[in-house]
């Protein structure tokens, strides 16, 4: 059984602790993730901006990396969803198209993997803090990840979950959108952080480091002491200390 980690370029370069948390959590449940180093980036940045040739270059590293995996687990809904665009991208390249279709069927976002594949919602975590949750757009709307994170959070002992007002509103990242339309993006993340502050939560948790990086950046800019964590990090800390 080959279960592979799709680390995502963001977690790889900036948030390696997310990957580490995932690997350790799953190892404790007898699932050893391997890490095919051929992977680089899912290709979203170029795909979203309309540069599909460049996207194919990135996508091929992903297709190659996971060609013989049985399951692929990824700490990002948007990167996992990006894989669903691969058949369209390789419609004219039969060899890659075949790999793309196979990868689509075996790629899972982290909480999907835990809940749907392993059937686990209680990892024995203890995290006695006030937490609020931001559901990332691609993961929740397009990949359909809604119940899984709720199921996992509800099993964490001591955790007080405070609903985030207008949680489903986009945080304003959108990849290159944040650079190209920086003022609109800035307005959106400012509003998101206003809502986070309303909850008076100590911790903001989410499933996608792109969103969390964006929101954390504005929190820090405004000197707000809210801790921003990926759910894998929260669960791992909850298991380690609990």
């Amino acid at each position, binding site marked *: 059984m080959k279960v592979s980690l799709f680390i995502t370029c963001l977690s790889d370069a900036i948030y390696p602790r997310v990957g580490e948390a995932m690997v350790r959590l799953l190892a404790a449940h007898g699932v050893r993730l391997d*890490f095919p180093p051929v992977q680089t980036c899912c290709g979203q940045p170029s795909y979203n901006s309309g540069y599909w040739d*460049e996207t194919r270059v990135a996508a091929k590293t992903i297709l190659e990396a996971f060609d013989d995996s049985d399951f692929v687990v990824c700490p990002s809904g948007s990167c996992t969803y990006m894989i669903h665009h691969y058949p369209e991208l390789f419609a004219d390249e039969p060899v890659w198209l075949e790999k793309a279709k196979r990868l689509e069927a*075996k790629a899972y976002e982290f909480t999907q993997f835990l809940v749907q594949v392993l059937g686990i919602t209680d990892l024995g975590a203890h995290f006695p803090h006030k937490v609020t949750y931001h559901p990332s757009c691609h993961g929740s709307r397009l990949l359909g990840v809604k119940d899984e994170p709720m199921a996992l959070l509800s099993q964490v002992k001591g955790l007080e979950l405070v609903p985030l007002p207008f949680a489903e509103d986009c945080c304003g990242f959108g990849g290159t959108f944040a650079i190209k339309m920086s003022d609109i993006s800035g307005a959106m993340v400012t509003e998101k952080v206003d809502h986070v502050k309303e909850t008076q939560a100590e911790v903001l948790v989410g499933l996608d480091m792109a969103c969390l990086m964006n929101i954390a950046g504005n929190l820090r800019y405004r000197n707000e002491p809210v801790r921003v964590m990926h759910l894998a990090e929260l669960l791992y800390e909850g298991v380690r200390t609990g």
Partner: protein
Amino acid sequence: MSQPGVMDTTVKERAGLALNDDFLRKAVKFTTERLRNGKKSASEEHGNWDEWRERGRQIRLHTIAYLDYYLNEFVNNARANGVHIHFADTSVEAAAIALDIAAHKQASTVVKSKSMVSEEVHLNHVLESAGIEAIETDLGEYIIQLAGEAPSHIVIPAIHKNRYQIAELLSKEAGEILEPDTTVLAGFVRKKLREKFLEADIGMTGCNFAIAETGSMVLFENEGNARMVSTVPKTQITLMGMERIIPSWTDLEVMATLLPRSATGQKLTMYMSGITGPRRTADADGPDEMHIIIVDNGRSLQLGDPEFQELLNCIRCGACLNACPVYRHIGGHAYGGTYSGPIGAVLTPALNGNIDEWNDIAGASSLCGACYEACPVKIPLHDMLVYLRRRKVEDGHGNKMESMGMKGFAAVVSNSKRFSAAIRLGQIGQKAVVRNNGISLKLGPLKGWNNYRVAPSLAKKSFRQQWNKLDQELNQEQPAMNSSVRSRMEQIIREREEGEDKHGH
């Protein structure tokens, strides 16, 4: 006013104006939230919303796929009812036909109910240039007409105006000071427009739906002005987008269920009118003469285009505007065209067939997909925005800096060695600018980001740099996989091989 073709200002500039207009932002936010909540309650109360959406989608897809049949049926049936049908390929033609009719009727006044198509073809301007008074009778449209502005929202056109501004505009019309009170202001408009309805030569309407099997047109409204302009004046002219067809009255039930709930959260608008031809000979009201101008203006360009044909499903409810976080912050005018919000961002370049000139309107989106989720007929606007961006690049009109950046990106991600090297380079290079694991520098590409944030620094060691150590450490302690978990996973693999796996989207 909206102008097809090259804009003198960019989306960014117009958005900047909007972002600095506090009243506008508050007004847009308040309005979209109200409408969004209304839709949410109404659709939840109704239940099975997704099934209804799928139904609506299927009916529209089918109608568009056979548009030559259904539109033809509509035309033949409408003619049999006594309606005069006209075809306009372009906006110029549409306005010209309307003007021709008005001139032949020697009209001096035209009263109009809400019609986005009439905005699209700049009808008022054409009529007024010919000395014909064209009066908008929808309260919001009347207000912005007095102000000389374009609508900023499909359903509530004047949300960018506050009551003081409105009182000022209406007081000028009234020739006396009117209090900035809704009842007073609306009361004045009712009285003033009542006179106009009764004396106008021509009534003009848009068309929400056209029923092919009986040649009937359907209007949804809350104020009563669409009924007024189609009942009182002796001549009626209706502008209709060629795609507004549904096969039957039975199908209208689906649209009547989806549209009002999606637009404003109502079960049904106060008035829904089905008009089948001009008045019957012995009727004592209704128009003597009725014209329907069927407008193409770029709609047929979407036919046969697998990426954009679904755009024609749109029922112009405005739900996407209310769901869009970008729209909420910048309002309608920033989009620069007749249609705003997510639908506008796609429609404007698609109808004009010129994404290149629409200065990055497709770029004003974070692709969050809220529009798709809100759309009662499931138009994948978020995908269409990416297709527009891709076409712009393919046509060679991509931004030069961005194209170079993307080539650089492709070079770095093309293989893991380059990728690792790039990360290492970054880890070294950033030392000069990192403070406390953050980068606040507002230079170059970081400027936009760091105007609102502190950027994160690259980790001291990337995940792949730490992997071997982590892997080896885990080799020491290794609980075996739970056997029931193993069988679950094996079962999933089996089902996948048999083609039954349905996880993900």
